[in-house]
């Protein structure tokens, strides 16, 4: 823990990835130093964000910079609880991912590693800056920087597939953000005269409901990173990237930047009360619930492991968008929790997919027969990650799904609970057979009972995936402080009955569970 003013910590969190971005190319010819810079920066960043969290939890809202770029709107940063949570998730997973990247990139002899680490550091910078954005314009700036800085990562292999995937990635993300999100931001500015995030929202009560519903739709579809159908294609396309990129960026940083933006817009631009009283969220709730199921069904049909995980991500992101749209305190807590829970679970699964590729060069699920005997650690971690995604105790994913379900009941959408249950069943159907195949089917060419030598990926791959699998377990018991952090983002003394009651429920549930679990 570092003892320093929150403003200093905040500045440090923003500067550290940038320093790494300068240092990495400097050590282009000394790979050991270059990777040292990445790991060092990741550790420093983690230390900084973890030190910043208690202050934010205690109510500090440090601010930095105020640079007016167009009349009335400036670039500036301010840490609030949701952003703090996102920075924590991204900051802590950067460490494990860096270790993993080194194992993966070296294990596969990937070219252009300096560019890879450089773009990675810039992407992390964009993520932290996005998390700390004070207003929508700043957020938009770093949203686009995140797209652009990850483009070279997606297209890292520089072959025809990569070019094709990169094209879809860039066009869909830039297209939705410029074609829908930016107009939404402009209209918001036109209506509210400000873009600064404020508890309770900034949109005036005088705005017509139909304007607000169009605006909400523009935001939900315009935030392409949240991968709401039909703008989800970029995510499977981005899977041409090396697996560490898929793991951190397309299970954590990029997609979570999307749903984080959705949460921010709903909580701080619209305000929960505006949504619930005007009912403009209703059509979108039905639509997103449909997407949630549909993406799971598509995942079922994919034989390529990373493609299946990608569609699983599309579906899991829909949980968070749905949680935001339900617009009750409990559901927003659930959505926020799911950012952390899904991150830990999905990064584990991607790490496993990459480890399988590094060790055995297998990418298709139908080729994975019996590999549990070759890679027991990896496949156990895969099981844990899957269980967390499905939402079974004692893993983190339990809590987020629980809260989203409670939130749906609160909001009076009983059918959402049914949707969540169907989806969990689908999760079981598309994730667990992979594990079953790995452990229970015979290894091709090897007789039953015959001993086989363990053939795991390099240690630098196995350790990170074990850590994140462990994190899925730990998160089950540490959900309470995270829930508290998210609650701090919500207006406490709201006029309605929902906030106080929900806060109570949200606070108690994890405590009770912790008691029961230990």
């Amino acid at each position, binding site marked *: 823990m570092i003892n320093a003013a929150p403003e200093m910590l905040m500045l440090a969190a923003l500067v550290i990835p940038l320093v790494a971005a300068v240092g990495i190319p400097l050590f282009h010819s000394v790979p050991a130093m270059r990777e040292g810079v990445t790991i060092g920066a990741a550790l420093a960043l983690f230390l900084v964000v973890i030190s910043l969290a208690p202050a934010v939890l205690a109510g500090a809202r440090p601010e930095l910079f105020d*640079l*007016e*770029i*167009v*009349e009335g709107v400036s*670039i500036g940063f301010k840490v609030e609880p949701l952003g703090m949570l996102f920075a924590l998730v991204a900051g802590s997973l950067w460490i494990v991912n860096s270790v993993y990247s080194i194992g993966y990139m070296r294990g596969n002899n990937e070219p252009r590693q300096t560019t890879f680490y450089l773009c990675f550091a810039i992407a992390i910078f964009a993520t932290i800056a996005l998390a700390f954005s004070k207003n929508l*314009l700043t957020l*938009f*700036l770093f949203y*686009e*920087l995140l797209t*652009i800085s990850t483009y070279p990562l997606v*297209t890292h292999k*520089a072959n025809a597939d*990569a*070019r094709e995937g*990169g*094209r879809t990635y*860039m*066009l869909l993300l*830039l*297209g939705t953000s*410029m*074609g829908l999100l*930016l*107009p939404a931001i*402009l*209209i918001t*500015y*036109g209506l509210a005269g400000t873009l600064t995030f404020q508890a309770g929202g900034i949109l005036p009560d005088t705005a017509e409901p139909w304007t607000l519903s169009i605006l909400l739709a523009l935001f939900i579809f315009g935030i392409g990173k949240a991968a709401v159908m039909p703008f989800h294609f970029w995510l499977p396309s981005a899977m041409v990237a090396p697996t560490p990129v898929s793991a951190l960026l397309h299970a954590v940083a990029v997609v979570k930047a999307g749903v984080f933006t959705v949460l921010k817009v709903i909580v701080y631009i619209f305000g929960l009360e505006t949504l619930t009283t005007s009912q403009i969220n209703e059509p979108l709730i039905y639509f997103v619930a449909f997407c949630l199921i549909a993406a799971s069904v598509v995942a079922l049909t994919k034989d390529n492991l990373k493609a299946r995980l990608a569609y699983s991500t599309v579906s899991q992101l829909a949980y968070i968008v749905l949680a935001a749209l339900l617009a009750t305190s409990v559901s927003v807590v659930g959505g926020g929790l799911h950012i952390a829970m899904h991150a830990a679970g999905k990064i584990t699964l991607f790490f496993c997919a990459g480890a399988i590729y590094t060790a055995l060069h297998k990418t298709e699920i139908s080729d994975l027969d019996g590999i549990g005997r070759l890679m027991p650690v990896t496949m156990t971690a895969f099981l844990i990650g899957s269980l967390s995604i499905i939402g079974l105790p004692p893993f983190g994913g339990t809590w987020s799904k629980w809260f989203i379900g409670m939130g749906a009941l609160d909001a009076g959408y009983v059918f959402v609970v049914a949707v969540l249950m169907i989806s969990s069943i689908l999760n079981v159907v598309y994730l667990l057979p992979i594990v079953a195949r790995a452990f229970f089917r015979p290894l091709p060419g090897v007789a039953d009972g015959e001993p086989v030598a363990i053939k795991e990926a390099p240690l630098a791959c196995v350790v990170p995936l074990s850590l994140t699998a462990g994190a899925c377990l730990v998160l089950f018991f540490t959900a309470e402080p995270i829930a508290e952090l998210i609650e701090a983002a919500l207006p406490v003394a709201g006029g309605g009955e929902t906030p106080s009651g929900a806060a109570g429920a949200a606070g108690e549930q994890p405590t009770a569970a912790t008691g029961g679990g230990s």
Partner: protein
Amino acid sequence: MSAEALPTAPFVLADHLPVLPIIVPLIGAAIAALMPRGWLAWAVATVSSVLVAILSVLLLLQVQETGTISYALGGWEPPLGIEYRVDTLNAFVLMIVGAIGAVIMLYALESVPQDVRPRQQPFFYAIYLLCLCGLLGMAVTGDAFNIFVFMEISSLATYVLIAMGRDKRALLAAYQYLIMGTIGATFYVLGIGLLYTVTGTLNLADIAGRIAEAYQVYPRAIIAALAFVIVGISLKLALFPLHVWLPNAYTFAPPFATVFLAATATKVAVYILLRMYFDVFGPAVSVEALPVTQAIMILALIAMFAASFLAFYENRVERMLAYSSVAQVGYIMLGMALANESGLTGGIVHLFNHAISKAALFLAIGAVVFRLGHTRMEELAGVGRRMPITMAAFVVGGLSIIGVPGTAGFVSKWNLAMGAIENGTPFLVFLIMASSIIAVLYVGRFIEVAYFRAPTGDCETARDPGLTMLLPTLLMAAAVIYFGFETTYSADLARDAARALIGGSQG
């Protein structure tokens, strides 16, 4: 020289600040033409350009401090004599032209000798300075006929500059522009003639004062004058569909000339149109009499889409950028057509933002031409890996053309879009953004070729050019990012200018 030094500077010089940016390149041109060696002429041109840049910045500072400056040329008081009249708007345009002219001179040192034979170099620089002088003169003068004179100086010089290109087709391109440019200038002077007939004056401020009265008597003459002036200048600024001269001119001119023209020439023409429409005709001619803004808005929208598509299907990179310029002129004219504060701010600031973005792009492509001598897209495979610094500047410029936040282009588009919302036409926001997405396509297309194909042919051995070419390129790219965040000297000035224009047309 600094702003504080002004009062102590010789009395005469400070007083004559408005005319100095014209005199310096004019004299410089004469000296440059007499130089025996190319590099000597280059030195003269560089000194003149840097002086012009300093002078135009000083002028801008002075206007900020004291408000509109009126300068009577030769001591003949306006409206009889020629008046140089500088307010925020044209000081801003002067600053754009001056700054671009100075920055790219370093680039000329290596770039020009590639296209121009040593014996012709002194003349090349002389012509360049004349072109500079003409453009600055158009911006600074407050006299309608004087605008025509300077327009002809700059146009004639431009024809020569284009014709100096090493490709034989440069001659044809110059000839094409000569015909079109002459038609444009003729239309303009016809319009001015009509105005003179009905108002009896050539001083812009004076015409503005009398035009309302004259309109009561000769409405048709004034409407005809407006139509002539607008069409004439639209030709010079390459408003779709009057743009056909531009792609060839930009493609075949020497790279140095292309950078200069692309960044400055159309911008000055836009300024003349703004001045004429808002300040001179504004008080008299209502939109009902001649729906100028509606017509321009439709043409601007067509330009934004049609030219962007043409850019996408273009195979030569310079020509792609040239079509992109036509599309960007569409944005600027859209700002004019919106005719409200934010829209005009967006249009005016885009004069500047587009100038620096396009300069960065053309400088980068000029460096590619310098190294490889060709710009067909399929022959540039892999150039991004071989010329990383040059192409990095290209990417920054391209992002600004797309309008990605954090670049200068975003500031323009934001203001334009706000203008569309203020105008009560939010659907225009979607059109603006849709056109930006086409920009993603054409910029992205070249980036894919440059980075994702293995280098072939002479691209394999290509490398970044020397410092004299890299520095201006990087400086422009840095400016694109700098002015994406710091807008005191771009958008704030543009807003002042826009306020003045709207005030002028209402008063």
